């Protein structure tokens, strides 16, 4: 219980800081909308092939825009050496990590939820009929991205080229989660329910989240302190 309270304290601090500065949120949102707009010029929104790749398109945009938020996760602690004060405090590194991952999840889902209606308009896709299952896929896949992104944000925080290194490290790691999310999103945007073989992708997402969350919680102290 105490662990969860400490994590929520860190998450609330990160969200409050970000909502005041809006540095990462504005950049990520603007990037997502611009990419959606540019892609809409490249594809014919009425074509059947566009519908077939809509899930993939959407998740590529989320992945690109998401790294802007993930990059700031630990980088915001560098100003005034705040990371030292957090690490010197009695909270476990895993609680610090979980708090940051939760804050990232909220910010990433917020960007995704704003981008979704824009995507629907630009690509002539009806996303509302299966909104709840779609929200479930968004949260499951985004948690996987947030966990891996937060971990690598901690790992690269002291690198000069961290803005470049983070995507290079994160994208290969999140391929399984992205594949599952793309597949499930395409099914749901086509107006079909998640059924039959598609449950395999749901199970993959859940397993991915559980494995990488456990790994990150176990390793983060070593990452932060060496």
């Amino acid at each position, binding site marked *: 219980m105490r662990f969860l309270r400490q994590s929520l304290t860190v998450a609330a*601090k990160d969200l*409050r800081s970000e909502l*005041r500065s809006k540095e990462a949120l504005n950049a990520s949102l603007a990037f997502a909308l611009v990419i959606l707009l540019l892609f809409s010029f490249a594809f014919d929104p009425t074509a059947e092939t566009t519908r077939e790749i809509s899930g993939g398109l959407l998740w590529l945009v989320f992945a690109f825009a998401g790294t802007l938020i993930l990059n700031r996760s630990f980088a915001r602690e560098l100003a005034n*050496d705040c990371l030292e*004060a957090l690490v*010197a405090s*009695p909270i476990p590194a895993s609680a610090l990590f979980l708090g940051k991952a939760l804050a990232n999840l909220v910010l990433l889902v917020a960007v995704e939820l704003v981008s979704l209606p824009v995507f629907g308009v630009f690509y002539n896709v009806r996303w509302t009929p299966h909104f709840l299952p779609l929200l479930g896929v968004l949260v499951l896949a985004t948690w996987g991205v947030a966990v891996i992104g937060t971990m690598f944000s901690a790992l690269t925080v002291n690198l000069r080229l961290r803005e470049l290194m983070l995507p290079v490290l994160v994208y290969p790691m999140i391929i399984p989660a992205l594949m599952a999310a793309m597949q499930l999103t395409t099914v749901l945007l086509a107006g079909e329910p998640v059924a039959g073989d598609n449950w395999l992708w749901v199970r993959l997402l859940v397993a991915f989240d559980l494995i990488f969350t456990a790994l990150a919680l176990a390793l983060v102290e070593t990452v932060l*302190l060496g």
Partner: protein
Amino acid sequence: MATLAAENLWKYYGDLPALREVSFSVSGGVCLALLGRNGAGKTTLLKLLAGLAQPAKGRVTILGRSPRDAAARARLGVLGHGIAVYDELSAIENLTLFGRLYGLAAPRRAALEWLERTGLGHVRDSLVREFSRGMRQRLALARALLHNPDVLLLDEPFTALDDRAIAVLQLLLRDALAAGRTIVMSTHQLREALELATHVALLVRGRLAHFGERSAEMLADPGWLYRRYGEA
């Protein structure tokens, strides 16, 4: 039992030894002024004492525990080179945040009390990014003292402070000493530090060249110790 003990500490940056065979211990009510020229290893030593870095050899104990132990960290207050408070949060939000992280029963009440003690009560709801350097440093000190730590580690606490801020800082540190707390502070401000210190340590190129009680000569002539060890 010593409040704080360092045993045979070695630390390397690449092949370069930043600390060599550093050993000392201090008990409650001691204020240790950690002196040395730039690059002598003062900040590195404070980081090892705070558990923010691992020594290559040797060990640190705070009240008999490793500084990475949560119970030891709860009794440790650290003020590093940076002020370690958030610019986007207000003074009260910063202190309440750290009060929660240290598991205080009433973090907001403790935060308000320390804002008053550091003369920041009137700006408690202002964002830290609007503060002057002196106000930031006072808030940082309040953050380090908020949980009444038994051991205080301060890295250059007097740097860039005006007379008023130095007076507030000295008063708070004297109160902490009177309450039996242990203070280790690195500094280049010899006069201010020696007025407070009960003990003095001098690091020369990573080695502990001197460790002992502050003497009358040091107080009368702050540069005396440097000259004695050829560091003038």
